[in-house]
């Protein structure tokens, strides 16, 4: 006997004690699929037979079953289940998770049960218990279907029991193995002219079938490249050529060129054809009158076949490994690929609040606004003026029958193709096109993005990035980031990127040197990266500039509601400038430079994200300078000068003060070098002309993240921006180094020596190709190599004294490097998601994670 059970179902074994349930379960299911009440008794009470633990044991069983069903795992309940009240919560559980409940009844003779129990020492209850259970089972048999079990299998004899074989059957809606390409077509409603035109535009070819007398006779449309049309339903009612539409679609389905899900109109027609009492409203009359015009001789047969066709439509489909879902009115994530009355109902009508609006139509709950699923959901049902993306869903019903358009969505291309309605065939109860003088609506995604959800950022998070796979953010780190993000960061809509931290090179072994290019070059060589670029490291503050062509472009692309055409923010997402007037003046200059550089047109974009350094350092670090750097300089000079003066006098009296005097003279010299070091990065800012912006990455523009462009491309743009406004935009000097060539390396090291000897902070060494992969994933996107003098303001004025330097050499880079990779991957991921026009929460989660990772305790001097 073969038992066909759906591959996602709750299998309830029913049988008295000793009927062989556990044996049956062991034989046909994986151990992890079987939840046994005895095991659960043992879990909660140490005794698998304890009857007093029954309630707690079932709590546990139901809890685990719920988790499994929620995750889409077939689950078998191994308990006697002979009473209706014990089965009821199981049926409810299956329904709640939109799985089919299946009953497998082990109706073996009572004698067998008694014998088996007698042979087991732990089953010491009397035969009366079994007798009672058998009676309860017999009484249950007839009502199982009514209780809600969709499939009931009864194994009456031991032969049946032994011969039983389980066959798992995929649900009808599971078409994960079909990968397309598809053309998903919106609500047709009898607009066959437009449908034919649309199919033709989509490249389908019409094959006039040999004319016959069948009422189903129709030309066949097929795509030469084998694309399939997927109809979101509502083929019938309202329009002028309803039956032609149905014929066309049915013929395509029969020939394997199309797939169709049912709409609510289709189902209502089916019920009417099946003789049910339905109201002849919402255009059903048109369908019925078309049917009436079929000759009476063939009409009953046609009606029967039409009803069968409609009845055979499956509520929704999951395609392409779960990447695509098509349903008439949409499909929530937890219902996708599942089967229950609720799923079917949702597919047909979507979600309603139970209220009706002023037009008498049900008020719809916007499920798509809450949609967080991975699968793209394409649906129709409610006419909209424009098909638009909202959280990976798109409604493509553009109201053709109401005088709008018939729209198709090409998958996987994600393009829409529409044809205009030839007439307004029907007036909608509620106008769906906005009045012509109305201001254009903001896109639904922008409105939805106005408010982010706390669940999308807090707790432990795992973010999948293209560059570094899964990046985990610990809960504690997210806690810290929430405060920074909420209290200090600017509108999340602008925050499409945060820069990563950067690790220094390994410590040099050269005298009086903590960092040297040799170690940076060696790092990349060991990672197998031959070609590098060295870029001058500017000593300012990291700044990200996101600029748009104009305020209108900003509103359109970023969904912001202000008049700002650009922003400039720090590495923690704060506004760089506190004075709005300076900010606006500065950004206007930057935007003008971008425009004059030709970037907008050449990169075919209305916006750009630039990674920059903004100088002087003192502009942002004023507080730090005044509180820490300058006082240390003052204290050091005065104290050491006094000490030298006193030691001079002491040495004049007794020569044993000599060595101490020398030492203090050296220290005094270092203090003054320290002051020179920080002073080099400070100058007063009287006007924006005193600011210098050095862009070094053109990170992203419309449709493109430039992390795959080599650095000469980026440097070239930096130079062009500099040429467009040399006053405030500074170029970045760079040098290409080949680490397989000693001469090239030496030139690189010399370049660094020259740079740092003239007060430069140092240099940043990057793989020439921007991102480079090695055995263990991507390599550091950048390694800094700081100058000897600059390091005084990191490690203190006297770090270069041998006894200090020797101790400073030991420093662990591993954590910093791992962090740099993860933050880099997250930043680039955020940009990719933004260019793909994903919902803001998907971008925000990456940016938020960068901020969260920054709260990792890592030596700030690295």
């Amino acid at each position, binding site marked *: 006997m073969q038992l066909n059970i759906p591959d996602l179902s709750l299998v309830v074994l029913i049988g008295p004690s000793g009927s062989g349930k556990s044996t049956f379960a062991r034989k046909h299911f994986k151990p992890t699929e079987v939840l046994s009440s005895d095991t659960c008794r043992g879990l909660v009470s140490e005794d698998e037979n304890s009857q007093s633990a029954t309630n707690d044991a079932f709590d546990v069983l139901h809890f685990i079953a719920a988790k499994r069903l929620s995750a889409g795992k077939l689950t078998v309940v191994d308990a006697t289940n002979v009473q209706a009240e014990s089965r009821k919560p199981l049926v409810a559980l299956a329904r709640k998770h939109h799985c089919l409940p299946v009953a497998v009844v082990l109706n073996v003779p009572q004698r067998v049960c008694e014998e088996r129990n007698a042979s087991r020492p732990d089953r010491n209850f009397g035969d009366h218990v079994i007798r009672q259970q058998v009676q309860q089972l017999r009484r249950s048999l007839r009502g199982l279907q009514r209780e809600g079990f969709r499939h009931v299998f009864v194994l009456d004899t031991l032969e049946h029991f032994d011969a039983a074989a389980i066959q798992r059957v995929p649900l009808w809606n599971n078409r994960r193995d079909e990968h397309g390409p598809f053309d998903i077509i919106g609500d047709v409603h009898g607009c066959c002219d437009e449908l034919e035109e649309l199919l033709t535009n989509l490249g389908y070819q019409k094959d006039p079938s040999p004319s016959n007398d069948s009422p189903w006779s129709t030309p066949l449309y097929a795509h030469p490249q084998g694309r399939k049309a997927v109809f979101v339903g509502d083929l019938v009612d309202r329009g002028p050529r309803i039956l032609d539409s149905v014929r066309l679609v049915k013929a395509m389905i029969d020939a394997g060129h199309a797939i169709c899900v049912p709409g609510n109109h289709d189902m209502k027609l089916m019920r009417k054809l099946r003789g049910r009492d339905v109201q002849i409203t919402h255009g059903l009359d048109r369908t019925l009158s078309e049917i009436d015009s079929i000759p009476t001789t063939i009409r009953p047969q046609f009606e029967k076949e039409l009803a069968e066709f409609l009845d055979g439509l499956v509520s929704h489909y999951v395609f392409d490994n779960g990447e695509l879902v098509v349903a008439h009115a949409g499909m929530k994530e937890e219902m996708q690929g599942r089967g229950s009355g609720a799923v079917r109902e949702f597919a047909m009508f979507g979600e309603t609040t139970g209220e009706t609006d002023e037009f008498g139509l049900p008020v719809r709950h916007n499920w798509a606004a809450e949609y967080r699923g991975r699968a793209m959901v394409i649906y129709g049902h409610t006419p909209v003026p424009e098909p638009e993306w909202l959280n990976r869903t798109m409604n493509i019903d553009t109201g053709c029958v109401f005088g709008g358009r018939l729209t198709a969505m090409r998958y996987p291309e994600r393009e829409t193709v529409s044809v205009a309605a030839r007439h307004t065939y029907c007036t909608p109860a509620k106008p769906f096109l906005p009045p012509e003088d109305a201001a254009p609506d903001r896109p639904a995604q922008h409105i939805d993005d*106005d*408010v*982010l*959800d*706390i*669940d*999308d*950022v*807090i707790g432990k998070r795992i973010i999948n990035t293209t560059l570094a796979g899964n990046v985990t953010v610990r809960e504690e780190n997210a*806690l*810290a980031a*929430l*405060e920074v*993000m*909420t*209290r200090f960061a*600017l*509108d999340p809509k602008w925050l499409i990127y945060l820069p990563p931290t950067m690790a220094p090179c390994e410590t040099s072994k050269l005298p009086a040197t903590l960092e040297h290019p040799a170690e940076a070059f060696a790092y990349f060589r060991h990672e197998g990266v031959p070609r590098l670029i060295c870029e001058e490291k500017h000593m300012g503050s990291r700044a990200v500039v996101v600029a748009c062509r104009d305020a209108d472009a900003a509103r359109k692309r970023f969904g912001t*509601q202000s008049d700002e055409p650009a922003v400039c923010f720090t590495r923690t997402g704060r506004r760089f400038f506190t004075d709005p007037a300076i900010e606006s003046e500065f950004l206007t200059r930057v935007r003008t430079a971008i425009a004059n550089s030709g970037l907008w047109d050449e990169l075919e974009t209305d916006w750009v994200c630039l990674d920059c350094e903004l100088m002087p350092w*003192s502009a942002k670090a004023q507080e730090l*300078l*005044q*509180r*820490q*750097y*300058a*006082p*240390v*300089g*003052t*204290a*050091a000079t*005065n*104290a*050491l000068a*006094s*000490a030298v003066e*006193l*030691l001079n*006098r*002491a040495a004049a*009296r*007794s020569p*044993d*003060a000599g060595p*101490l005097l020398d030492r203090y003279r050296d220290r005094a010299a270092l203090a003054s070098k320290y*002051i020179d070091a920080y*002073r080099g990065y*400070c100058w007063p800012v009287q006007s924006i002309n005193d600011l210098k912006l050095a862009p070094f990455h053109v990170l992203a523009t419309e449709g493109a993240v430039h992390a795959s462009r080599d650095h000469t491309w980026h440097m070239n743009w930096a130079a062009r921006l500099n040429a467009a406004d040399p006053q405030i935009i500074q170029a970045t000097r760079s040098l290409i180094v080949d680490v397989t060539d000693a001469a090239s390396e030496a030139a690189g090291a010399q370049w660094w020596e020259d740079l740092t000897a003239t007060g430069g902070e140092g240099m940043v060494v990057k793989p020439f190709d921007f991102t480079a992969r090695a055995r263990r994933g991507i390599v550091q996107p950048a390694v800094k190599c700081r100058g000897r003098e600059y390091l005084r*303001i*990191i*490690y*203190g004025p*006297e*770090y270069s004294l041998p*006894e*200090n330097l020797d*101790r*400073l050499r030991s420093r662990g880079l591993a954590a910093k490097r791992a962090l740099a990779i993860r933050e880099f991957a997250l930043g680039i991921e955020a940009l990719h998601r933004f260019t793909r026009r994903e919902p803001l929460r998907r971008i925000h989660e990456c940016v938020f994670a960068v901020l969260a990772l920054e709260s990792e305790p890592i030596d700030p*001097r690295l």
Partner: protein
Amino acid sequence: MLLTISTTHHPATDLGFLLHKNPARTQSFDLSFGRAHVFYTESDETRCTAALLLDVDPVGLVRGRRGPPGEGRTLEQYVNDRPYVASSFLSVAIAQVLSSALSGTSRERPELVNTPIPIIASLPVLPARGGVEFVAGLFQPLGYEVTVQPMPLDPKIFPDTAAPYVAMTITATCRLTDLLSHLYVLIPVLDNDKHYWVGEDEVEKLLRHGEGWLAAHPLREEITFRYLKRRRNLARAALERLVAEDEADPDDAAEKHDREEAVVEERVRLNDQRLGAVTAALRQCGATRVLDLGCGEGRLIQALLKHRQFELILGLDVSHRALDIAADRLHLDRLPPLQKQRIQLIHGALTYRDSRLAGFDAASIVEVIEHLDPPRLAAMERCVFEFARPKTIVITTPNVEFNVRFETLPAGKLRHRDHRFEWTRTEFQTWAGRVAARFNYTVRFVPIGPDDAEVGSPTQMAVFQVCN
């Protein structure tokens, strides 16, 4: 890091005996944080000058350090003034390197120990947290002639700005042991920091080195407070023991106390009034389940708990630290279960939609909105009024018009550094009216605090009620 002590006592060379350090040699001593050197720049019958020079190891400070992070976490930084200034490191060095002199013992000159001699002490770089007057105020009452030389901060970058240091010279005819005790206590007081954890034994040290002078010092409270790193319980214990040994004028003390309280009360009273007004509004609307959005350290929750009407109070704050303090303040870990289940504290932000906030009768947002950047208000409005949607919403915020009545507040300044804005009554009412209209609420306004005819009350409150 540098202290010089001179005397013109005759013979001045006796200073070497008092310090137990030979004027002919340069001596060095190892300390846990570096080295100390003692040498003499002059030594003859008429004048003798000894120098205590401290070599604080700057790398050792950061690496392998035990102890507190220091004010502003300075001890965790390599760029650090500690190696160059007089601080608690110098006090430790005095106690270790000049211990006999500090305790007033001398083998060779036992009689001189108790003889006042003319002494000049110089500290070339002394942190002066509290200003030049504070430096003088500390040493003058002890009988010193004080010369304080302010020090400019880097003039290239900060023209006309004073560094937080001074060069100080004090002169007196006194016992060397007294001078060293004064310095031992007052250097860290001026620096207002300590490089080691301050515990009970620090009280003993203070009383020992303060014996005979601290109890009578007019700034004894401030000295005690700062010396004990502002740990109130320690300072109280120390002061009690000081005063017990001291016959202070009780009237004087009482008067001073009254004065202090008035200043404090002014502030406390407004805060209490605000909590009272919000509690009244929440009680009046009949709410049983209430939200305190931006609950901070839980003061309002504490007030609401006293009313049994409130069955569930959920406090939300963006600062995890504030929530920890709130849990502490509310004794959440030892509250009886029935009380405890009335309180929930959650970490969250008003700019993110949060399903945990749905289904409440009322919400209070007390002194919170002014901490949000104005462009982020829109998100807060939707999260609260559209998504959480309690029936009653109480919002309070400062009334900027009233600021002119605060005598200590400079004109045009906001009341708190983190305030992003402070609104006039019109601004607040316009905003509240627009929000109410947009989200279908009614709104009324209530003043909190004295309602000044001209500028209104210090705090303004809006009470929103959802329309049915």
